[in-house]
């Protein structure tokens, strides 16, 4: 399908160009300066579009704000809250392909193509892909409409916890015996309630180098008729200890946050709380700038 017919235009004027100029001036090499300028316009355009649609973004956490990262890395990322990092690639006029440099392949939920016009007064969101390649023909892009669908879907709860109590467990969850060794299984019992259901999932934080997999473990039990007690744990897989710095954060729509970070020689980390049936919350596990978020409804 040709996505270009449905492209979404964004005017680029003083605010966009002032930010781009600021980032341009931080680069000493002329080619990097131009790259910083165009990457900023691309991120700005996508940020504008997503905010217009009600997505929460964190533009100031982008690599484009870090001059030395931008000097070595040609990246144009944008963090969307509860969804993850999107890469925003600027497409020059007359180009029929989207280039995605290797440094932008890691830790992205999607790659958005933004066509710039020669005057740089207008950017058009023309489409996206979820799997990177060095060169992607523009005619292979999925449309902006499909991108809205894709991102909206990411915000929906992936897991309905009260359904676990009647045995309806979403695919991708395993019993703890399948994930952890016997010593670790003992540790999961520190939750001092009558556990009704315990399930775990292997999480890949994209750590290519040490490739240490971790397990997210949820134990739930009925607290009252309308409330549930929930314990969330993070365990290492095939290792004794978690990598120091791994953070577990649980947040709900009201902005309440529970957070714990692994120190040296932690076997696991955990948080416990009680929530009402129907409440939504999300769990984010992160280390450095890499993170995975999962959305739940109690």
């Amino acid at each position, binding site marked *: 399908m040709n996505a270009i017919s449905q492209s979404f235009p*964004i005017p680029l004027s*003083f605010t966009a160009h002032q*930010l781009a100029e600021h*980032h341009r001036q931080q680069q*000493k090499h002329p080619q990097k300066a131009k790259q910083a300028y165009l990457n900023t316009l691309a991120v700005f355009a996508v940020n504008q579009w997503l905010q*217009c649609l009600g997505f929460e973004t964190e533009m100031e956490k982008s690599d484009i704000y870090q001059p030395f990262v931008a000097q070595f890395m040609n990246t144009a990322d944008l963090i969307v809250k509860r969804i993850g990092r999107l890469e925003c690639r600027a497409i020059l006029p007359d180009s029929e392909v989207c280039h995605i440099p*290797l*440094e932008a392949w890691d830790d992205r939920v999607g790659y958005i193509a933004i066509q710039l016009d020669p005057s740089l007064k207008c950017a058009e969101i023309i489409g996206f892909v979820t799997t990177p390649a060095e060169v992607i023909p523009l005619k292979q892009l999925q449309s902006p409409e499909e991108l809205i669908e894709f991102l909206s879907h990411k915000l929906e709860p992936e897991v309905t916890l009260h359904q676990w109590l009647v045995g309806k467990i979403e695919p991708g969850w395993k019993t703890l015996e399948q994930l952890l060794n016997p010593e670790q299984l003992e540790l999961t019992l520190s939750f001092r309630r009558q556990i009704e259901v315990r399930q775990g999932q292997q999480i890949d934080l994209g750590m290519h180098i040490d490739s240490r997999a971790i397990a997210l473990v949820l134990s739930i039990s009925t607290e009252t008729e309308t409330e549930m007690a929930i314990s969330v744990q993070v365990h290492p897989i095939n290792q004794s200890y978690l990598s120091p710095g791994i953070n577990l954060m649980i947040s709900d729509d009201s902005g309440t946050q529970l957070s714990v970070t692994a120190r040296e020689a932690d076997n696991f980390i955990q948080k416990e709380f009680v929530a009402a049936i129907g409440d939504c919350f999300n769990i984010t596990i992160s280390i450095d700038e890499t993170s995975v978020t999962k959305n739940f409804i109690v």
Partner: protein
Amino acid sequence: MEDETLRQKALEVQRHPPNSAERRHALSQLVRLIWISPDLGHPYRNVCPISLYEDIRNEAILRIMSEIPNRIDQYQPQYSVMQWVNGLLRYRLLDVWQEYKNAGITHAPRRGSQREPVIVRSLDQLQLDWAAEPSLSDSDEMRQFIAEDPEHRLNKHIGKYPTATLKFLFLAMLDGLTWDEIAKMFDPPIPKTTVCSFVHRNLRKLEPYFQKHLCE
């Protein structure tokens, strides 16, 4: 006809609950239709120099695009959507022009008390800057800093490759080597995605270190 399409689209946005995928789809279509509508006005054409008018109007349109999602529930269907939008555009255009005159349009941090007018550069103008040669002293300064590594923070290396230190990798990048070329310098070769991701993750953490020593 077009009026009716826009009216229906605006009512469709109002019908769907906030943050629903349906509302986002309808909003996206509505804002797109407004922006490409031939009825989107050009108010106060003579308020500013003609060379600035397009940019002033574009900035005003950008602001309206941010406002519509919050204001759409106030839209009343007895008016045409474009009447409503053009009313907003008149106000925003005057706001933007006033701010431009005061050099108050700001997003990026202003450098000191300097107030330079913002230039909306075209690709050609940007290309002209690109033609200039980089100053050698700047890349020398970077190279020297990495080689000296005053706080010894660049000795970290990739797993089982003690020679694949950050220092070595940064210097190879400064020499203009590609990820592929760098990856093949090791025996056995390291996957290039591993090299790239190792440098990237550490670079984000090292940004303050670089700034401290190179931005004095």
